[in-house]
């Protein structure tokens, strides 16, 4: 299987992430006063949050902290009760999910959502935005979309090689393992040429062999100037690639800093202690450096609507 074999992190497909803007400084995404509650329960209440251009930011927090809801709100999959967020200077608050993705803010899901009965190749092709042939008015005029389709095919093939699924190109996506689906989802998202990639628990359900490959791919993207914001439970993953760690608890952001700083923050430890003993293990692992412990099997935020 290609994916496990190729963990040479430096090799980067040239077509990947060509859409990313060169790393200018300043925030690519800035959020203010975003609020969301379900019934009487406050799921998200974020006063201020921003992501700098070209950075890798991890969003951590105990189960039910509101991370996934926050993600869903920012990407238009859930309505905000209030607040606004700007992406590359554009106000995206309240915009539909597809418009947000087209603006360059592309997300993946906690449980990889592939199109199971389409081939790996078709899955990746679908990632590309602005396809002429996807318009009904030109769908029957083959000559109008053929050149673009051929071009997309080449780029899709490169991206598939890049994530190490070359051998699976023509297989149905439904036949892939959980980890391979995560890689496929990443490849598909990359086809959309995102400037900000939002990964919801990229390592959930990924076996250790593929984990490294997935990490390397995320590093590749960052090296190419793509900004990455990801939700993750596993502190090993967080401390190995994130430059900035933001911790949420009960819908609020309670700490922000380098992985070391956040893990040592008393409020963070308290939040995890207050949640469940299972999550405490993650914090301990980071501070105490206990490698080889089981990857965080606690997937999913428990809050409503995740």
């Amino acid at each position, binding site marked *: 299987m290609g994916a496990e074999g190729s963990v040479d992190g430096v090799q980067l497909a040239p077509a990947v992430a060509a859409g990313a803007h060169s790393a200018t400084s300043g925030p690519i995404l800035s959020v203010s006063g975003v609020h969301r509650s379900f019934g009487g329960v406050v799921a998200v209440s974020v006063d201020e949050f921003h992501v700098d251009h070209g950075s890798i930011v991890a969003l951590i927090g105990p189960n039910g902290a509101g991370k996934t809801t926050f993600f869903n709100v920012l990407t238009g*999959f859930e309505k905000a009760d209030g607040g606004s967020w700007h992406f590359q200077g554009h106000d995206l608050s309240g915009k539909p999910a597809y418009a947000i993705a087209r603006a360059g803010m*592309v997300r993946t899901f906690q449980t990889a959502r592939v*199109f199971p*009965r389409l081939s790996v190749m078709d899955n990746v092709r679908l990632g590309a935005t602005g396809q002429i*042939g*996807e318009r009904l008015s030109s769908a*029957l005029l083959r000559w109008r979309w053929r050149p673009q389709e051929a071009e997309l095919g080449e780029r899709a093939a490169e991206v598939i090689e890049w994530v190490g699924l070359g051998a699976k190109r023509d297989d149905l996506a439904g036949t892939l393992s959980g980890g391979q689906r995560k890689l496929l989802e990443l490849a598909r998202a990359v086809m959309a040429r995102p400037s900000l990639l939002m990964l919801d628990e990229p390592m959930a359900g990924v076996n250790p062999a593929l984990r490294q490959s997935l990490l390397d791919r995320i590093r590749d993207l960052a090296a190419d100037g793509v900004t990455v914001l990801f939700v993750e439970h596993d502190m090993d993953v967080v401390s190995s690639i994130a430059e900035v760690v933001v911790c949420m608890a009960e819908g609020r952001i309670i700490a922000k800093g380098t992985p070391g700083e956040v893990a040592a923050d008393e409020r963070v430890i308290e939040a995890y202690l207050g949640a469940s003993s299972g999550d405490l293990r993650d914090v301990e692992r980071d501070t105490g450096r206990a490698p080889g412990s089981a990857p965080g099997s606690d997937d999913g935020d428990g809050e409503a609507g995740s």
Partner: protein
Amino acid sequence: MLAVNLGAAAVDGLRDMVGISCCVYALASIGLNIQFGFAGLLNFGHIGSALVGAYGTAIMVNNGHPLWLAAIVGLIAAIVLGLLLGLPTLRLRADYLAIATISVAEILRVLANSVRLQDVTGGPIGISGVAKDWFSINPIPEGRYGWGSFSFNHNTLWTMILGWTLVILASLAVWGLSRSPWGRLLKAVREDEEAARALGKNVFALKLQAFVLGSAIGGAAGIVFALRGGFVTPSFFIAQTTFNWYLVVILGGVATVIGPPLGAMVYWFVISTLNSLLTQAIGNDGWWFIASTETGAVRYVLVGVTIVLLLVFRPQGLFGDREEARLGGR
């Protein structure tokens, strides 16, 4: 049972297999297959599109407009119905969409049937003389063509040519669309809407396009129906007809290109042959629980049983593949 003439029954089946009714079914099912098969939209009111197409044409002709203009108006009416029905309902869950569509189709039928609107729609009697212009340009010399009971008069043949040409054109369009990026996107949306949205695809617009396209083809089926004998009556536009079309789509193979036309042909062959056999066997005396007037109902019972068996043992239909069937049945 009594002696039956299998050959005569089969000839009846063959005649209806190429007849206009089958043609109308094939065309309507192609439209329904775009909605239900390719886009996964559960439209239980597809007959409404045909009604609007047929009545739009008939009312225009009745008011003295030329047939070509009337047919265009009928087609536009079906497109407008698709838009009006699709805009508010396509955000609904599949089951609500089904309820909303069947309701609208019934409302339309009741309106068409209304005595108070007789001046416009003709009420229960309907509108006749729709096809005068059409028959007047018929190049086929007057007469009957065919052998024995497998025969058609020149006007029927003329409408059959139009109908089957439309079936072929619509099938080619579906074939082209299903192989285009648009078709690929439709398939992706049917599998996982959320994932498609996350990739920047306007899922609602896509569904609306598929819905309106299906509705337009349903409208064309209605127009062919109006040209069959030149008269339009509300009794054809009952909800049952939509379900017959579902049967045709499932029989032929959900989300396939040739499924609906071939499914319609098989459907009509089986229905007519059975009808002929039952009529011969039961005759005027009736048999066991079946009175002679009930043979029409009995053939539908047999067709129902066939469909149940088909769904259990061959869910992909006659011409589909298994994977697609599973998707369509979600």
